[in-house]
């Protein structure tokens, strides 16, 4: 064997070992999308071979030597019809199949585990409801539907996991959602596929799929401080949302208990289900989202709360199943010296909060 220079040898080794041709299928939707993909590849190959074979055949059969005098043919409507109907039929079949997959990918199931993703110029911030915060990484368990609620803080990004065949644009100003169910444990690529500036090609990361047990271990080992809901509670108090939304019957703002998923009648008529997007809009542009029977006095928090803050508030509101937590925060704010004197003396009967120690009656 003649001497192969090290660089070529290194290249060949790389060729043998590190050479991907098709992305791994690591989510439930991946095989379905690959089925459609290979069907389309097959149809395209057949179509291409038909065209190429015809061209080659006609070129050989009717070249100038073999067929010096050309016969003028006007055309045939039958042939025209065939190569209009057949491609149209094939394309429509692909359209229907594709639309089914599209709806399956972008309609999260109700029981999906929600993870928030905030795209920011040149990094992905992933926030698990339990409080785990990850940068350019996403740990998910297998066999569980995971819904990503994605938003961007500045420009268009696009959260793309090729191995899951899933991709959703991160848009500043509104949530976009996508869901997947991971199947095979492993580490897969995470890309930002919408051009977002200088470090666009470094805005990458890895998606680590763990078996349910490993996922629990990871959750336990990586908890960092309070959960999103707890942070949301602190924000809820510091922004003095409780001043109006204090779940008392005489409150100035609608009660937020079990509001998530409820159908809210709006002051402008019509009703809307309170999902993440609605809650975010209600915080930032309240005057368009006033629940019936309440005065439009809620101030806007645009520019005062970061995207992560809104996510924490939304998470807090989603977990509000009783007025108890709000009462607790309201009472503590009463203790603060500068909090304004108590509203009219007729204090509504304390909500059904169990007598908990450490609460000082004013």
């Amino acid at each position: 064997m003649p001497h192969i220079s090290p660089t070529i040898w290194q290249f060949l080794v790389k060729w043998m070992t590190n050479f991907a041709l098709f992305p791994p299928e690591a989510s439930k939707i991946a095989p379905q999308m690959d089925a459609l993909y290979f069907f389309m590849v097959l149809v395209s190959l057949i179509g291409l071979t038909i065209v190429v074979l015809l061209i080659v055949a006609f070129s050989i059969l009717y070249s100038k030597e073999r067929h010096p005098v050309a016969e003028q043919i006007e055309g045939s409507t039958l042939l025209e019809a065939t190569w209009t109907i057949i491609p149209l039929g094939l394309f429509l079949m692909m359209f229907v199949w594709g639309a089914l997959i599209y709806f399956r990918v972008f309609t999260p199931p109700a029981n999906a585990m929600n993870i928030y993703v905030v795209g920011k110029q040149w990094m992905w911030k992933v926030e698990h409801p339990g409080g785990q915060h990850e940068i350019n990484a996403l740990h998910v368990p297998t066999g569980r539907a995971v819904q990503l609620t994605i938003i961007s803080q500045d420009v268009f990004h696009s959260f793309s996991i090729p191995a899951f065949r899933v991709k959703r644009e991160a848009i500043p100003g509104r949530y976009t959602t996508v869901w997947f169910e991971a199947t095979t444990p492993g580490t897969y690529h995470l890309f930002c596929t919408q051009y977002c500036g200088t470090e666009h090609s470094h805005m990458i990361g890895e998606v680590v799929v763990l078996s349910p047990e490993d996922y629990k271990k990871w959750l336990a080992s990586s908890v960092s401080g309070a959960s999103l809901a707890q942070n949301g509670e602190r924000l809820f108090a510091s922004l003095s949302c409780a001043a109006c939304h204090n779940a008392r019957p005489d409150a100035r703002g609608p009660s937020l208990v079990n509001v998530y998923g409820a159908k809210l009648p709006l002051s402008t008529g019509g009703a809307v289900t309170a999902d993440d997007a609605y809650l975010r809009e209600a915080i930032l542009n309240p005057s368009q989202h006033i629940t019936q029977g309440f005065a439009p006095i809620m101030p806007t928090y645009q520019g005062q709360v970061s995207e992560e803050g809104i996510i924490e508030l939304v998470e807090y509101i989603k977990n509000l199943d009783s007025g108890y937590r709000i009462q607790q925060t309201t009472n503590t704010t009463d203790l603060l010296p500068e909090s304004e004197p108590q509203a009219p003396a007729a204090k509504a009967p304390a909500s059904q909060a169990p007598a908990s120690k450490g609460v000082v009656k004013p």
Partner: protein
Amino acid sequence: MSDSHASADYPFTHGDSGEVPAHAEHPAYLRHHFNSVEQQADTTNFAMWLFLLTEVMFFGGLFTAYLIYRNWYYPAFVAGSHQLSIPLGAFNTLLLITSSFTMAMGVWCAETRRKSGLVLCLILTFILGLGFLGIKTIEYSEKIEKHHVPGFHYSLSSFLDPDSDAAAKAAGDKPMALDMARHTEVYFSLYFAMTGMHALHMIIGIAILGFMIYRAHAGAYTTGHVTFVENFGLYWHFVDIVWIFLFPLLYLISRH
């Protein structure tokens, strides 16, 4: 003179005569590549219409933006629209419609070769156009005073507390929430984009009008060759149509 060999291949060149067959006597303004005056006038008219098509699509983008944001921020559009004065807007519409009329009369004068009539109509159109722009400057200056120009310290005071603002008080506006008041800037962005683009087209029109008056005075358009006046008429009427749509959409949002 193409040499004899060449002529064998070209069936469309006469033997070796080579000289262009005598044309019927044609007026000076007929361009060489047209076969008749009729074809030339017809062609330039069609070309003008195609150009107006591009203008329709150009303003189409602005109208799309307007319709979307009007649905999204209707209260802000109402408050913004109350800042505009209907008398000035209506008067501007009258001015522009009359200038369209005088322009049409100008085209008629050119067709019937009435030079003085043509010059008079063109001057009237010129004055009415200037009047329109004058009123626009009044309106714009009023907005600049009130800081309603987006991007230049845009102030929300006249929406947050309408009593401090004469126009808002007159329209009986109620104080607006801050987030909706902030979206009035989108209204004024569109207001200035649309009326600004329209005014720019007016200025171009008036400039061409000035040139035409000078040429008409020299007797150019009353010799039977009216395409320039006719095409300018089409442009002017188009600019008038844009205003006919702008006026109700921007000024008359829920005045009751």
